[in-house]
């Protein structure tokens, strides 16, 4: 076998230019694939991070049926025991209780339907990054009674600004009209339209008073140490907490749309993978087939001397595999270097900020290197290089020695 490997290597060296072009094509293909995959992974990570760090969180705990009814009546009555249980879980980084209700926010000039969140600012800043998205004013503090935070776009629609008074109207838990005047303490700018135009934040006690909820809450938002574990931790919590009373949902279930975006992106990546593999296949096939056709006479001699078909196949296949391996190493170095560099400095896409914000992405995307897709990419390139060697190898092995030797 060593001699056949030696012949394969020397054949690659024999036609340096052609081999280099093929290795470059394979390398650039694989490098581009790794970089694109790293970019998409980075974008997904940012999407999930931003999406879950605004209002969704990694896991939400509601009373059973909240996901369908989505109303004040589906509250969690005595959360103290749940909160102390959550404190003991090692996977959980932080959690925050919330009141959540729909209502109408009115200024002197206009009004708009909003989603009202009653929050504990100290806890909320541990599960969400909304406090970092304040463009004007400041975020809520425990003493910000009767103050609220709204989106900058909503303020513009209502023609109000910092310090102005607005009125929240809704229906309280007891069926009465919930109405209260609040002063705008801060303006949010997340870039996400549904938040900037439709969310109001106020203190948890203020919201409980407004909606006559006493110490009841609507949900508990949980931030995990690792977002990847959202599904498994949600399952664990479902087993540990009273499942008949609570629904404990990971972000993927709360927002299937985000999950679908990511799945669509992943499907799109596979189209890129197929295109790259076709380029790799054509590159290697061209080199190996040309090499085989040029060496028809040599294969004739090898066959005449008594070389078996399978040995000829192995010789040609090794040539193809070596081109694949060298190309893969070069592509791996290229892809990983590019991804690492841009993983640190980021890729500036500020020209498309508004479009990116709609998808919960920032102006800078940071590619993420992941062994999983790197292994898949390299394995695919090597598999392709073996696959495309089948025809040239078969052709070489089935030459008629007496005819092949006569070939000039």
């Amino acid at each position: 076998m060593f001699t056949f490997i030696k012949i394969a290597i020397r054949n690659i060296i024999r036609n340096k230019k052609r081999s280099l072009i093929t290795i470059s094509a394979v390398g650039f293909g694989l490098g581009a694939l790794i970089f694109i995959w790293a970019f998409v992974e980075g974008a997904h990570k940012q999407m999930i991070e931003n999406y879950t760090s605004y209002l969704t969180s990694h896991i939400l705990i509601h009373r059973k049926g909240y996901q369908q009814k989505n109303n004040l009546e589906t509250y969690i009555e005595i959360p103290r025991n749940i909160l102390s249980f959550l404190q003991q879980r090692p996977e959980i980084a932080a959690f925050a209780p919330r009141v959540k209700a729909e209502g109408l926010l009115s200024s002197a000039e206009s009004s708009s339907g909003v989603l009202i969140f009653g929050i504990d600012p100290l806890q909320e800043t541990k599960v969400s990054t909304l406090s970092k998205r304040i463009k004007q004013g400041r975020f809520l503090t425990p003493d910000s009674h009767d103050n609220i935070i709204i989106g900058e776009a909503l303020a513009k629609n209502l023609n109000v600004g910092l310090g102005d008074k607005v009125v929240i109207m809704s229906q309280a838990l007891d069926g009465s009209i919930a109405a209260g005047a609040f002063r705008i303490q801060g303006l949010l700018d997340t870039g996400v339209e549904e938040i900037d135009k439709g969310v109001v934040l106020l203190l948890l006690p203020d919201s409980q008073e407004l909606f006559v909820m006493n110490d009841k809450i609507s949900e508990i938002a949980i931030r995990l140490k690792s977002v990847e574990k959202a599904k498994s931790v949600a399952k664990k919590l479902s087993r540990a907490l009273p499942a008949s009373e609570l629904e404990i949902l990971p972000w993927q279930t709360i927002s299937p749309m985000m999950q679908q975006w990511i799945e669509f992106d992943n499907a799109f990546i596979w189209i890129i993978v197929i295109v790259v593999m076709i380029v790799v296949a054509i590159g290697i096939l061209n080199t190996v087939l040309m090499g085989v056709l040029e060496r028809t006479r040599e294969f004739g001699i090898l066959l005449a001397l008594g070389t078996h078909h399978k040995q000829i196949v192995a010789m040609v296949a090794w040539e193809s595999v070596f081109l694949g391996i060298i190309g893969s190493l070069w592509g791996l170095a290229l892809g990983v270097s590019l991804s690492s560099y841009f993983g640190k400095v980021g890729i500036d896409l500020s020209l498309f900020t508004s479009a990116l914000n709609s998808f919960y992405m920032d102006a800078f995307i940071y590619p993420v290197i992941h062994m999983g897709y790197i292994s898949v990419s390299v394995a695919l390139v090597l598999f392709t290089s073996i696959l495309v060697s089948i025809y040239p190898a078969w052709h070489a092995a089935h030459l008629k020695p007496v005819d092949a030797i006569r070939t000039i």
Partner: protein
Amino acid sequence: MALIETKNLKKVYTIGKNIRAEALRGINLQITEGEFTAIAGPSGSGKSSLLNIIGALDTPTEGLILHDGQDVSQKTPKQLASFRLRHIGFVFQAYNLINTLTALENVEYIMLLQGVSWHTRQKRSKEILKRVGLNDYIHRFPNEMSGGQQQRVAVARAMAAEPRIILADEPTANLDSKTAQELLNLMLELNDEKKITFVFSTHDSLIMERAKRLVILKDGVIVS
């Protein structure tokens, strides 16, 4: 028993759809062990076709080709490959060495296919190359050697398999007369020393004179 025997051997090539070219028209030939036979004749007389069939590189259209009394014309390509590997050494007109292997590796190649161990291969290859006068050229690639040196490597390669018969298709055609004589001397020495049977085609009159047996072909039949 003859080492090689052909019985009414015919070879017809079909060119295009309808054109039939009869290369051999019923050859009956016996070659015994240790012969040094030249097959001569003008171009197109059927010399190469006859050598190809004797060497199991090609199969006859009709007739039998017997090696040690066994018909090899009905063997499969795989069986023919094994047969060539074990029984026949080839020397081609254009040397036909493997360009990516050194002289030593070219000689070693056949033994590698035969499953001979590395140490034995190395030892025997070096001995054979020394025997053909290429002791100082063992690590050279074919393109680093002259035509005569390459043809000597080809003879060494043919010998490496320790065949009973070496077939050479116009082995001196690409060599100058001095080198051709040297190669012929080498082949005659090997024929005497090792009792290897040599059958070669040629149209060189000097070579024909030194052959121990001369078979002349014309238009696909033996004329003398």
